[in-house]
């Protein structure tokens, strides 16, 4: 699977732009602020129905305009597939596959998978546990729609349960049996989520270890651990034991919304004990393992989106990484860098052709006609 052409209309800093892509390595180069990352994000939109960087659709519209359109032509199993995403202020986002509207965006996710590696991924190391759960959700929901549904149910039930706890506090009346009605639903969707996550991690961790060793040349010992209260305790019992505490705090203190992934290097947290290069290598291994996992599950090679990948990695690791992803196992690659010369040099060394787009030099059509979609 690869993307053949990408058309943007009023998407972020691009009024109108078309790029024709190579089915192997593509590089968008130019100074910071020229919009090269926006091109990767546009492809992410067509894959995941949303921006990787900015969850508010309307904020991705060009300044002063009220809509954007992203069109992409993909090749999937030798067939041409036209995907279109259009966002208009205060209107429902419209997603089309071969001119046919999707009823549910979730039906699209996973058909044209992408894996993005970006400096923003650093929140996985630096940020709270919700960032790492989001990673789990993003990967698993690409192949498991039951998981997606269970997650929506779980969050809704959790919100209702917390609202009920707040009512208990306001009225001074605690009705445990009424709370248990909600627990029933929380437990059933919580168990589906826990089991999916645990099954995923069992297959995912060896892949992660493999890629870390490959990029780092086995320089250090790393470890990823899935941590969930449900692993060692019965969910029903946990909720029961936490009853008084939850009533006091008007918040559900136990469940899969407390799950986390522990990242360790030589037995210590990566956040405090890993160098910048090690942290970056860690995150790249996380993503490449994700790539391989999705490829196996969905039977299609995701498009690899590499944003600013050379930053903070030593030359040795950069060469290893690019040699790795340019090999047959991976498919199409879209990457960004500030220097076209550096990209040329790196790919010359590993003997791989690369199509370079100097984004700050692309002549931009200013015609204001609305493209067909």
């Amino acid at each position, binding site marked *: 699977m690869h993307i053949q052409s990408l058309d943007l209309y009023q998407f972020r800093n691009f009024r109108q732009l078309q790029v024709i892509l190579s089915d192997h390595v593509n590089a968008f180069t130019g100074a910071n602020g020229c919009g090269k990352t926006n091109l990767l994000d546009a492809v992410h939109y067509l894959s995941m129905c949303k921006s990787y960087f900015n969850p508010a659709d309307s904020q991705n519209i060009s300044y002063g305009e009220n809509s954007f359109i992203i069109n992409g032509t993909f090749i999937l199993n030798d067939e041409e597939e036209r995907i279109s995403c259009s966002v208009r202020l205060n209107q429902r986002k419209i997603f089309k596959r071969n001119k046919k509207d999707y009823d*549910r965006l979730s039906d699209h996710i996973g058909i044209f998978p992408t894996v993005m590696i970006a400096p923003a991924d650093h929140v996985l190391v630096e940020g709270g546990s919700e960032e790492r759960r989001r990673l789990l959700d993003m990967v698993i929901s690409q192949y498991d729609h*039951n998981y997606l549904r269970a997650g929506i149910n779980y969050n809704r039930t959790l919100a209702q349960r917390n609202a009920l706890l707040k009512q208990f506090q306001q009225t001074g009346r605690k009705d445990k049996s009424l709370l248990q009605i909600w627990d029933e*639903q929380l437990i059933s969707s919580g168990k589906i989520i826990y089991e999916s996550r645990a099954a995923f991690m069992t297959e995912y961790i060896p892949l992660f270890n493999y890629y870390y060793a490959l990029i780092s040349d086995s320089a250090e010992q790393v470890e990823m651990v899935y941590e969930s209260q449900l692993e060692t305790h019965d969910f029903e019992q946990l909720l029961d034991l936490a009853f008084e505490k939850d009533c006091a705090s008007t918040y559900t203190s136990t469940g899969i919304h407390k799950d986390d992934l522990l990242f360790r290097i030589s037995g210590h947290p990566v956040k405090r004990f890993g160098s910048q290069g090690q942290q970056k290598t860690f995150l790249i291994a996380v993503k490449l393992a994700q790539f391989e996992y999705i490829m196996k599950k969905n039977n299609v090679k995701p498009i690899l989106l590499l944003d600013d990948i050379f930053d903070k990695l030593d030359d040795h690791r950069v060469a290893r990484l690019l040699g790795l992803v340019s090999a047959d196992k991976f498919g199409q690659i879209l990457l960004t860098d500030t220097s076209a010369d550096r990209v040329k040099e790196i790919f010359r060394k590993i003997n791989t052709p690369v199509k370079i787009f100097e984004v700050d030099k692309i002549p931009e059509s200013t015609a204001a006609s609305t493209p067909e979609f």
Partner: protein
Amino acid sequence: MNQFARLPGIGRKTALRLVLFLLKEKDHDVERFSNAFTRMKSNIKYCKECLNISEEELCGICRDTRRDRSLLCVVPDLRDVMAIENTHQYRGMYHILGGVINPIEGTGPQDLNILPLVERIEKAEVREVIMALPGTVEGETTTFFLFRRLKEYNLNFTTIARGIGVGDELEFADEVTLGRSIMQRIPYESSLAR
């Protein structure tokens, strides 16, 4: 205009159109129109059995002696009664719950017509309670609440089937619905009976 815009399904543009229309109408026409509203509100009663709106003590459905009193279908509101009646498939009775349990919106079991339901079950010949609530978290929770509440009575407690739409291709059904249809399959003979 603001009064119109408060109505469900009426935006500010439509409200403005309605106001402009009424301003053009003759005075006595407008008066008739407003009288109809006032009469509707003061004449409307609720059926003392099923709590549907009714102009008399008992609604048409509850008065109908040919209907099966041993079947009781629990729905959130009267729109659901109309939807099920339009199928011409069901000949039992109804009970209007008045919503579903929803703490975020401040709706608890005490705000729903649950006590009247229990009273009906205690005094009448109900054999089966059919839960016809939405497939949302709130709907399912309300069904579970009633399942517990009605456990002590010797009842057949059922829920409407959720599955593949008639005429739908399996490959286009979402996985959750399809999965449920497989798990809750029915004997073929009973599907012939319909």
